[in-house]
């Protein structure tokens, strides 16, 4: 069979999701953000909720996410996406709201906002792209940077005495009664990408079912600032990040039952 016989619309098995715009992504070659964007577009398309989904993209490499998925978007200040999403979700209870945050954004400058939004159980989805570094500003240390990891501000490797410990914020989030689904995924192989898509779909379904906050961490690479090829970066991630940021579900239940909290007798 000739190539031209195979390449025929009837035989199509994989194509770009319709919700991805024609804009060329500004990300570095091989950046995990692109894969996560694609999964989001696919999930929103599969659930057919593009008319009621509002994305919030705070500062970080993905601040321009609004250029790539055909839905309504709000750009947010560094770290504040969970507050912005709270404002939308509270006043638009029939909409589906998600934030798309980096590790510097979510675990450092926006730590208060994410903890309180998750603790209130805001009905929203959080996509947390943890690449262990500040990508956008040129590779400085993030709260998630591993001990010994070299960054622009830890040129001799992260030192606990000077910089404190890497923050497993997802483990913290999983403790909060307002979250229903908390999971850690990755997008470095076809199998993990398919699994991550299922997790994102589940998180969006939870938002549709008004189950409180669902939180999907995607352990990711920043090959540019890790100073590796994209292929090498994936290997480095598996070898160094997975032992500390262990993939898998951290919580899969529902928001805590208010009845289980005994009220004060007034």
């Amino acid at each position: 069979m000739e190539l031209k016989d195979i390449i025929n619309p009837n035989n199509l098995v994989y194509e770009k999701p319709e919700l991805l715009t024609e804009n060329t992504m500004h990300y570095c070659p091989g950046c995990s953000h692109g894969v996560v964007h694609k999964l989001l577009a696919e999930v929103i398309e599969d659930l057919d909720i593009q008319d009621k989904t509002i994305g919030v993209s705070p500062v970080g490499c993905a601040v321009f996410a609004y250029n790539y998925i055909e839905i309504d978007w709000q750009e947010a200040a560094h770290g504040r996406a969970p507050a912005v999403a709270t404002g939308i979700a509270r006043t638009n209870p029939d909409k589906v709201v998600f934030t798309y945050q980096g590790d510097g954004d979510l675990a450092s400058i926006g730590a208060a906002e994410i903890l309180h939004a998750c603790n209130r159980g805001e009905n929203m989805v959080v996509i947390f792209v943890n690449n262990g570094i500040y990508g956008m500003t040129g590779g400085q240390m993030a709260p998630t940077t591993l001990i010994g990891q070299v960054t622009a501000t830890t040129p001799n490797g992260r030192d606990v005495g000077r910089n404190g410990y890497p923050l497993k914020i997802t483990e913290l989030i999983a403790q909060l009664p307002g979250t229903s689904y908390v999971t850690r995924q990755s997008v470095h192989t076809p199998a993990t990408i398919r699994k991550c898509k299922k997790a994102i779909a589940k998180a969006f379904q939870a938002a549709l079912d008004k189950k409180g906050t669902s939180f999907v961490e995607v352990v990711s690479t920043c090959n540019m600032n890790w100073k590796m090829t994209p292929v090498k970066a994936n290997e480095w991630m598996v070898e160094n990040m997975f032992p500390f940021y262990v993939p898998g579900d951290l919580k899969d239940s529902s928001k805590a039952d208010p009845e289980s909290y005994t009220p004060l007798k007034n």
Partner: protein
Amino acid sequence: MAKVIGAVVVNNEECKGCGLCVVACPQDVLGQNKQVNSRGYHYSFMKNPEACIGCSNCATVCPDTCITVYRVKI
């Protein structure tokens, strides 16, 4: 067992030559072109087209969604 044959189309101009599709392919179909596209990237191509089984692994891992996959059962 029915045999499947596949083929992929790479959007040469959108490809950033990251090489992720090359390692994701179980059939060693893809390679990076010696040529560069207008943005200077060594875009991916089917160096070994007969081996493609249309599994979509390459397209799945592509961060820039520049691979379209076709498959026929024979």
